[in-house]
Each structure stands twice: as C-alpha cells, then as structure tokens.
C-alpha cells in the first residue's frame, strides 16, 4: 500500500487533483468506493482537526456479555471501547503501518527470535498510577499458557516468555522466529491493562478517554482523558452503544440520532447514499464469509464434491447483487487484495461454471447435503440461498438449516460437516493463514492438516526477502484454494455509515470504522 500513501501525500501537497487521485488509486485495483473513502481520509490529512463535540456511535451487536477485559473481547463495540480506554505496545496507523504506541521503540534481534520494547515514560493509567514494565508483563502473560482464556493466544504460541529488562523495558523471547510479532501486538486483545486488575468494568487503562459509565448491552459513556500522554482525543465525550436491528440502525443514522454506525447491510447502502448529511464509509478488507466443508468426514472428504461446491459459486453475481459492489470476488483462500503485495495475483480466478460443477458432483456420487447457516457475515445467508438455487438447477438438493447466531460457534462451527464461517481481516497475511490453516491449529475449521502448509508458514515468518516471501504466500494460497475445503466466494468491504460532520477516521480495514481506532483520531465539525 506504499503507493497509496505516496499518492495521498501528493494530493495533500496539491501536486495532483481529485480526479487524478481517484484514477490513480483505481489503477491500483482499489474499488472506486474505497478510493472515495481514501479520498475522505486524505482530505482529513489536509484539514486540521477541531476539538470538541460529543459523538454517538452505534455498533451492530452487544449484550450483557459486553467486555472491558481486552483478552476476551469479541465484538466491534468491545474493540471500540478497547481503543477509547486502552493502548497497546504498538499500533496500526493508516494503511497498515505498525508504529510505536506505549513502546516508543521496538526492535528484533538479527533472526527475529527476540523482540525488545522500550516503554514510554510518564504514561499514567486513569486511576493515576503510572505505567511500568510489570503492567506490560502482567498483561502479556495473560495470553500465555494452555489455560489462558485469551482469544488470540494462538498468535503468541511461539512466545517462550516475556522478560523484564528494567522498569521500562520488556523483551519477548521466542521459540521460533516471528517477524510479524509487532503486527500481532496491534490486535485489540493485546491492549495493556493495570497489573492485577480483577474488576475490568472500570476500564482502567492508559487510553485517550476515561469511562464514566458502562452498562453491558446498553451503552458506555466516555470523556476525554485530559492528561493523556500524547495529543489528547478530539471529542469532549463519546457515547458507545449498539442497535441490533440493521434497519433501525440505518434509520438512526439517517434521522441523525447516531453519528456513526457499523456494519451497514449492503441492501441499505443505496438508502444512505441517497440521504443527505450521511455517507457510507466503505473500506476494502480481507473480511470474508465462507463455507467450511470439513475434510475429516463425508461429504467433505470427497474432492469432487468440494470442487462442485466451489464451481457453483456465482461469485460475480454475489458481489454485484448481494454486496452491491462493496466487496470483491474471492478465490477460495482468505488473502484478498486488501493484503496488498501478499495477495497472489498470479493465481487464476475460479469462475462460475454450472456444467463443470454438475460434472464433478455427478462424479462424486453425492446428490444432496445439509448446510448449517447463521447470519454471521454480511451476505452469507443470501449467497447460500443463491448457491442453493443454482444447485437446484443442476439437480443437486442442498438443504439449508438456518440456526440462530447465538450458540452458533459452540454448537455448529467445526462440528457440522457443512457450515458457514466469518473471518475478520488479520494484521498480516501470515497471521491470517496461520490462525486458520496451520496444521492442528485450534481454529483450523475444515480440519485440513497439511505438512507443507505448516512448513511454509514457519519459513515465511523467518524469511526476509520480499520476492521469496511472495512466492511462499502464492503457494500457500494455492494450497488452500485447492485442498483446504474452504469455499470463499467473496470478500466484503467494511461498510459503515458516517455523518458528514465526522472526519479523520483512519483507513484501517481490520475492523469497523477504521478498525475501531477512530476514537483517538477522528474529529467533528462544529
């Protein structure tokens, strides 16, 4: 994405105009809509942020299980709170660049088996106590060990230990090289909390906003942390809630009850764009909804069946009429173009081909199957119905069993032979592939154990030469799309609704509204 940044710089300097900018960005294979939002973000670089105003943001999901404990956070509203109340050692700024945060500098040893983080001095928690290496150690150790409830402990499986060098220096010692460790540390779950915290509801962090009230499943209120350790946040106050009904959520934005809403249903984009004062902030992302066909059982253990399922995907139409263009066709592997250089352009795109599909399914001797569907990802339900419809035309009977989203991950995912899944974009292509396809990985949700894949992942982490690294990525993506049993027909943009008053939302595809990192950087026109 370096090119993009250069372009933005040029635009800000005024050396190119809007149209050229859009064209140029388009040339980089970025959907025009995304370009639009880039432009907006770039506009912001031009204008200077204003302080003040109180902002309301409505996420898509919340409930009594809303969390203020980073390591078990799972929903957008949690993540946003993570960015109001906490900081990480490092952070992901615009366009996926890892930059320092609580750690003013970080560096690996020669072969990336050790990473040293120098902590900023004079950083204070909201309760007044100041940040020390012990807090970092405590926070980081919570991800280690078999018993850890951390939801991303997989990222740190190769961390042997965290060492305290002095009061403001910590070192991560690894079993095997990991050039991606800093990127992984940008995850919301890796935020730093006060040592020995038991009641997380207070949200005692070092972040730009203090929490004044927290009602799980209702809302949380935050005010600016005036003695923040760097340029303070722009809003006087932030109010975070969620509106579960998508229709109601959009209504709320249009009626001006909310300044920002996450996860705009593709069907409503037209509505928002046609109403004044609000617009859709659509960011290209690796986020996808796919179909897991388990390898270790019928029918998934039959390669022809899988082929058939992949060939029956009318990818173009899904992007066209279900995502309304806010997304890109998938190639049955998770690495979308949003991963930039790591995406394998060389790999030929799989096309919609009922005839071939029919041939393979006939060959497989399977004529019916049952697919478990929950609305876990944008457009997943609809695309499954489309698939079902196309299968019916070629005489294959796909039964769809719609199940509620609650309890889905426990009861269906990685249990039923055919089920749907949604994956958010991960900071790096490697971490994405590793978390889902490393042999024996906790969330290897098609039970596809491929030695070669395992090797490549390790080598790739240790590899520093970009060209070779890219080759490795290409091979891995090919492997996944051929053999893993994943059907990935599309990647969806991150679509959020934003009032035109709001500026400075970072361009970050890792989650809703600038990867939920907006609280510190966005600002509001009076």
């Amino acid at each position, binding site marked *: 994405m370096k090119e993009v940044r250069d372009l933005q710089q040029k635009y800000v300097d005024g050396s190119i105009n809007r149209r050229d900018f859009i064209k140029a960005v388009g040339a980089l294979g970025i959907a025009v809509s995304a370009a639009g939002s880039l432009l907006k973000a770039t506009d912001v670089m031009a204008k200077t942020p204003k302080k003040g105003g109180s902002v*309301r943001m*409505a996420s898509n999901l919340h*409930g*009594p*299980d*809303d*969390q*203020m*404990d980073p*390591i*078990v*956070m*799972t929903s957008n509203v949690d993540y946003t709170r993570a960015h109001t109340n906490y900081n990480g050692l490092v952070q992901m700024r615009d366009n996926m660049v890892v930059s320092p945060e609580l750690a003013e500098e970080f560096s690996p040893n020669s072969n990336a088996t050790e990473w040293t983080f120098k902590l900023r001095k004079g950083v204070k928690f909201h309760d007044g106590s100041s940040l020390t290496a012990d807090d970092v150690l405590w926070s980081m150790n*919570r991800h280690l060990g*078999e*018993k*850890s*409830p*951390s*939801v*991303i*402990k997989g990222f740190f499986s190769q961390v042997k230990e965290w060492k305290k060098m002095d009061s403001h220096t910590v070192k991560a010692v690894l079993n095997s090289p990991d050039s991606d460790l800093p990127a992984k540390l940008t995850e919301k779950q890796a935020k730093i909390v006060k040592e020995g*915290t*038991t*009641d*997380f*509801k207070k949200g005692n962090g070092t972040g730009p906003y203090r929490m004044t*009230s*927290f*009602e*799980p*499943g*209702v*809302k949380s*209120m935050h005010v600016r942390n005036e003695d923040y350790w760097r340029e303070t946040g722009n809003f006087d106050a932030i*109010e975070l*809630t969620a*509106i*579960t*009904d998508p*229709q*109601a*959520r959009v*209504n*709320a934005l*249009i*009626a001006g*009850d*909310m300044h920002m809403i996450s996860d705009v249903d593709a069907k409503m984009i037209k509505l928002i764009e046609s109403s004044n004062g609000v617009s859709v902030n659509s960011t290209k992302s690796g986020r996808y909804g796919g179909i897991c066909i388990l390898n270790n059982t019928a029918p998934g253990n039959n390669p022809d069946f899988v082929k058939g399922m992949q060939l029956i995907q009318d990818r173009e139409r899904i992007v066209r009429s279900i995502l309304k263009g806010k997304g890109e066709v998938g190639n049955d592997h998770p690495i979308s173009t949003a991963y930039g250089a790591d995406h394998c352009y060389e790999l030929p795109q799989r096309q919609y081909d009922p005839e071939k599909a029919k041939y393979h399914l006939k060959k497989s001797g399977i004529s019916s199957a049952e697919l478990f569907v929950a609305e876990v990802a944008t457009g997943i339900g609809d695309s499954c119905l489309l698939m079902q419809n196309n299968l019916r035309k070629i005489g294959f009977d796909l039964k769809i069993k719609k199940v*509620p*989203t*609650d*309890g889905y*991950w*426990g*009861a269906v*995912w990685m249990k039923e032979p055919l089920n749907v899944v949604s994956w958010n974009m991960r900071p790096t292509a490697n971490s994405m592939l590793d978390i889902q396809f490393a042999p024996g990985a*906790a*969330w290897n949700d098609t039970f596809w154990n491929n030695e070669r894949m395992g090797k490549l992942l390790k080598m790739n982490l240790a590899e520093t030469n970009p060209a070779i690294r890219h080759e490795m990525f290409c091979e891995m993506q090919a492997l996944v799309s051929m053999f893993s049993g994943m059907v990935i027909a599309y990647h969806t943009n991150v679509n959020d609704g934003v009032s035109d008053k709001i500026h400075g939302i970072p361009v970050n595809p890792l989650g809703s509204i600038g990867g939920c990192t907006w609280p510190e950087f966005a600002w509001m026109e009076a």
Partner: protein
Amino acid sequence: MLFQAVLKRILIGFATLFVVSIIIFLGTSLLPGDVAEIILGQMATPESLAALREKLGMNHPPHTRYLLWLGNLLSGDLGMSKAGSGAGTIGTEISVMIAPRLVNTLRLAGMVALISIPLAMSLGLLASMYPGSRIDRTITFTTLSIISIPDFLVAMILVMIFAVQLGWLPSIAYMSGNETGWQLIRALLMPTLTLVTIVSAQIIRMTRATILNIMSSPYIEMAILKGVPRKRIILRHSLLNTIGPIVNVIALNLAWLIGGVVIVETVFAYPGLAKLMIDGVQTRDLPLVQACAMIFCGTYVVLIMIADMASIISNPRLRHPK
C-alpha cells in the same frame, strides 16, 4: 365475606407464583450449550471453556440449585450476572443491571397506559353507545385491522411515516440517560405511539363487546322504559357492571406491556426489560433470564390479582352482604 374473597384470591396468587418459580427454573435450565461456550464464541478453546465453567460454578445438582436460587430470590438477592466480567473475576449485580431497564420499561408502559386507557375506553363507549352507526363501524373495523396485522409492521410503518419521511420524531428511542421532560417524552414518542395503537385496539374491542353484552340485560331495558337518556344508561347503568371484565383486559394489556413488547423494543432499540431477557437467553446468562422471567410472571400474576379484586370489590353482593 368480602375479606374472605380477597384473602382467597391472594392465596391463589401466591400458589401460582410458586408454581411459576418452578417452571421458570426448569425451563431455563433446559437451555443448551453452556454459558461458557457462548461467552467465548468463535474464540472458544477447551482450556478457556474449562476455566470459565469453573468460574461460573456450574456443577451442583438441580434441586439444590433451585432451593438456593429461590432462597436468594426471596431474600431479594437476584444473584450475579457474568456480564462484563471478562476473564476477570467480578461480574455484575443483576439487580444493578435490571434497575435501569425496569425503569425504562415502566416509563414506557406508564406512558402508554396513561394515553391508551382513557382513549380506548372512551372510544369503546362511543362505539357501544351507537351500535351499528357509522362511528361504530369505523371504530370496529379500524381496531379489527390493527389487531389483525403483525405489530412489527405497525411499528415499521409508523417509523417510515413519522421518522424517515416527515422527520418529526426520532426513529429510535435512544436515551443517554440525562434526558428530562420534553426530551424524554420525545425519545419515547415513537414506541409509545406504536404500543398505544396496538393496546388501544384491544381495549376498545373488549369495552365495546362487554358493554353491548350488558346492554341486552333486562335492567337496561327497564332503564329505557323509565325514560333514562342513553348517555346515562351507558355511563351510570352499564359501566358499573362492566368494571370486572374491562379491568381484566387492562390488566392483561399492562402485563403485556411489561413483558411482551420485545419486538417494539428491538425495532426502536429501546433498552427495556424484554430485550434484556432476550439478550440473556442468547448469551445463556441463566441467572439474568430467570430474574427477568420472574419479574414478568410476577407482574402478570399481581396485575391479574388486582383486577380480580377490583371486580370482587365492585360487586355489591360482596361489598354489601345481606
């Protein structure tokens, strides 16, 4: 005599509540997929599950769990919800979670009742005063249509008209909690409007039916033959005798307003009790679900009890024994 009747009714009420508590406890414990799995969701790993189960202490025999629960309930302790505890140790007092929601729910129910009861009763009277007239036919058909379409459609159409098209009212009943007076009312208007429409329809129909039914009794004919004007016949002669059934309908509708308005709360993102319970069900937060359910059923039982007492008391035979 009156006293006995009332006392008997109260005892029955308590008996019912007891049965309710058993049903609720059994019912909720039927929910599959233990809490732990739900909390961790896609990110669940065997270890983290085990850890959390341990923490939530989900390993006692059911009957002891019931007795413990009932005991706490009676001592006013609704128990702890895991809400917000994360991997930390401290969850949230359920009473703390419920309190604001209950306030909201009561607020809404109150506003709806305040508007719809007088409105509905007068319309019902109007209709029954001139049966078969144009007014009557209009009222009957309108109410009929309203109770005949799904309530979420009623809600949606109202939103389309008043919020999205006209932009008069906020489309959701979102409250920061510091609203007062007019702001508050304004925030509540949409859901109130919807519920008033639905509830009134019910009450109007019942009022009309009951009064017309009374109107066919001989003492009304007598009143006519005494030359009593129509208004007085309705207001003085029949209304007194319709208190019982009408109060009953009102009670039922109030109960529904407390526990049955899930859909309206969803559509308007209104943080009420019903929604809380649904969330509770989805996150398998059993203590929470049980508490909410108890509140709903309790309200119902009490309201119906009050209604019955009203009709007991309004019955002169019991009020003035021989």
